[in-house]
């Protein structure tokens, strides 16, 4: 870990202050209705704080943090429902460039990602959308001095606002990572149920591309980036779960029916107790996965798979119960519960389903014996 504990706490405090000041519920609602889906001014401040470069190495202008710092940062972002390309640019793309080992590309591209001036995203799954190697549906062929790409990528997050696309494609000699100018790609924006999210399907047709050199096989680098993204999402889920849980318990203390606080009814009290278990388990899973990944532990894949489905399910379940426990008020657009439910449902799909991660988890258990 490049950052000391005190320093980290101060960093998180600053982050939480920024979110409290600039990413309150009203801000989220305003920003999610804009075409870009994020606040560029706030993005600048997020970058100034070092969040966009959190996991970028110091020699490329980053903070040099790892999975544990990332997870904590994402807890706060999830609690605030931050709409931003942080996951796409500061996690997936930064993680991929960091893992791949193309020194020239890293030196050229990472500083802009770290200081927020360049927004990047990664196109890696095809229409089957399982975010696994088999599903890559873009092919690369040599063309002149460079390459050209054909095929399709699905559910590419923040593609529409990206200045830089990293595309995973099948070259004749195997999988590679390609740098592409987003302007050269046909982008079909996807209407998302989570209105804080931006996604698009991309179509490549003879699209010019530059191949990045890899010190490790491309899919290994992708998996390394995905692991960071999984931990980041788990953190977001833990933060979102806790915020919704707290909101609900506060309401159960404040709302009176039949002459007493509704939290006084065992039906509500028991639901709240169960949700505390969900929320704490979600946090434990996310933090544990982050620690194992940061430590390069042998059981990291198992811990990450566990977090991926446990946190996804906890967030969906908690937001769903929260609506029930609030009653009619949470059936209104003006109440924030559904915004969290929408985020929870997107987070439960991004980079793989709970069912798929349960399978991965069991496979990891099998291999561990």
């Amino acid at each position: 870990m490049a950052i000391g504990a005190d320093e980290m706490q101060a960093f998180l405090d600053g982050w939480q202050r920024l979110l409290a000041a600039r990413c309150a519920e009203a801000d989220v609602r305003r920003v999610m209705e804009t075409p870009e889906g994020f606040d560029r001014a706030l993005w600048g401040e997020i970058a100034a704080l070092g969040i966009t470069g959190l996991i970028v190495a110091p020699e490329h202008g980053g903070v040099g943090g790892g999975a544990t710092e990332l997870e904590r940062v994402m807890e706060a972002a999830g609690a605030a429902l931050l709409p931003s390309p942080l996951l796409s640019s500061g996690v997936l793309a930064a993680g991929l460039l960091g893992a791949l080992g193309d020194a020239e590309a890293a030196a050229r591209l990472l500083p802009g990602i770290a200081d927020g001036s360049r927004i990047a995203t990664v196109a890696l799954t095809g229409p089957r959308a399982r975010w696994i190697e088999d599903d890559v549906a873009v092919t690369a062929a040599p063309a002149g001095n460079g390459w050209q790409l054909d095929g399709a990528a699905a559910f590419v997050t923040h593609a529409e606002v990206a200045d830089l696309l990293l595309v995973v494609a099948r070259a004749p000699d195997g999988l590679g990572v390609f740098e592409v100018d987003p302007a050269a790609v046909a982008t079909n924006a996807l209407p998302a149920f989570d209105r804080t999210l931006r996604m698009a399907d991309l179509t490549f047709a003879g699209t010019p591309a530059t191949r990045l050199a890899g010190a490790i096989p491309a899919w290994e680098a992708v998996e390394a980036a995905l692991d960071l993204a999984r931990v980041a999402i788990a953190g977001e889920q833990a933060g979102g779960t806790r915020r919704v849980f707290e909101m609900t318990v506060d309401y159960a203390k404040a709302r009176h029916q039949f002459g007493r606080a509704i939290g006084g009814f065992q039906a509500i009290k028991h639901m709240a107790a169960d949700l505390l278990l969900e929320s704490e388990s979600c946090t434990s899973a996310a933090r544990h996965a982050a620690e194992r990944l940061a430590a390069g532990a042998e059981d990291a894949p198992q811990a990450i798979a566990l977090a991926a489905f446990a946190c996804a399910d906890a967030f969906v379940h908690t937001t769903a119960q929260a609506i029930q426990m609030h009653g009619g008020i949470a059936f209104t657009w003006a109440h924030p519960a559904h915004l969290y439910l929408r985020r929870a449902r997107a987070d439960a799909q991004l980079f793989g389903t709970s069912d798929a991660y349960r399978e991965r988890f069991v496979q990891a258990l099998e291999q561990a014996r």
Partner: protein
Amino acid sequence: MTDDELIAETRAFLAANWAPGRKSSGEAYGRHPDSDFLQRVLDAGFAVPTWPRESWGRGLSAAQGKLIEREFAAAGAPGAGQDRSNLWANTAAAHAQPDFRSHIVPLLLTGRVGMCLLYSEPGAGSDLAGVRTRADRDGDDYVINGQKVWTSGAADADYGMLICRTDWDVPKHKGLSFFFLPMQQPGIDVRPLRQITDEAHFNEVFITDARVPAANMLGKPGDGWRVLMTALAYERSVMGDAARGPRSGKAGPKGDAALVELAREAGMLEDPVVRQEIARVTAYKILNRLNNARAKADMAQGNSSPIMSLGKLAMSRILHSEAALRTRLLGPQSMLEGPQHPCAEDANFLTLNAYFTSIGGGTDQIQRNIIGERVLGLPKEPELDRELPFREVKAG
């Protein structure tokens, strides 16, 4: 009349009045697009056949009523079985004063008036007996002041079934009265509320010096709670029987194998986890149907059935678990919405709209309390303010 004669008569009526294959979009907040046809159904005595002859019916048994319903269902024709399903007409028929009753019930049975339920208030949801909207007598009228909320269909309604307080010096359940409040008048201000489904079916209703003739009161002053119990029982039984389907406009597969078909379309039918879930959710649906059929059979024998109270809770579980399964079938596609993604639109809409059943009409938690206390006879939860004069009850 024998069963066979009745069936023959029903078929002849339908053959003469309902073209084969004609579709009906069904009732919405009291109004029905096929009201001319419904008038003929009413005149022929098929709308409420179990009611007495002098009250729009034919005095048939519930079992014979069921035969008529079955013929109508087979022809896809609306209007039969309203003696079970029309909450507005049943409530009015049971409790309205004679003149208003003979005026309003035929209109309700022919889908000619828009209706809404003015029950919930900001401070009185589950605790409905805590309503603070007031009615004060003024000559032949009552004057109404207060605020209602979550009022579905209020924007176009002609009447609202209103529960409000006429006596503040008696305990909360005793001082309530129930009215058919004319909605189209200056003292009523309806403001739509945007729902999580991004629709605006429900509303806030601000009532300021609105007037309602005393003749529109159902029951007597102070009878409001009893009338409300009739109305709520019909509402809950309807909610336990059916719910709003997908809204994509795509009809989608129907019947017991619907989820199998959806799974096949999604390419997920071979997934063993999906197969288990299809079994679980489809079983919930079939078992609810069987439960309801048994309850109706008991009722037809003149016996009350504890199963009647279970339908709404069962339906809530069905809707939430079916929405979760549809989400699972779609995987990442479920992140999408809009007309180009009808399956995702349906899965997401059904996920959200399931709360209509698990919160609306009394929450699942309240429903469980009712089953525990009224059906099973378990001790009641203590209610601190139950016996206090309402004037002394603190606002929620």
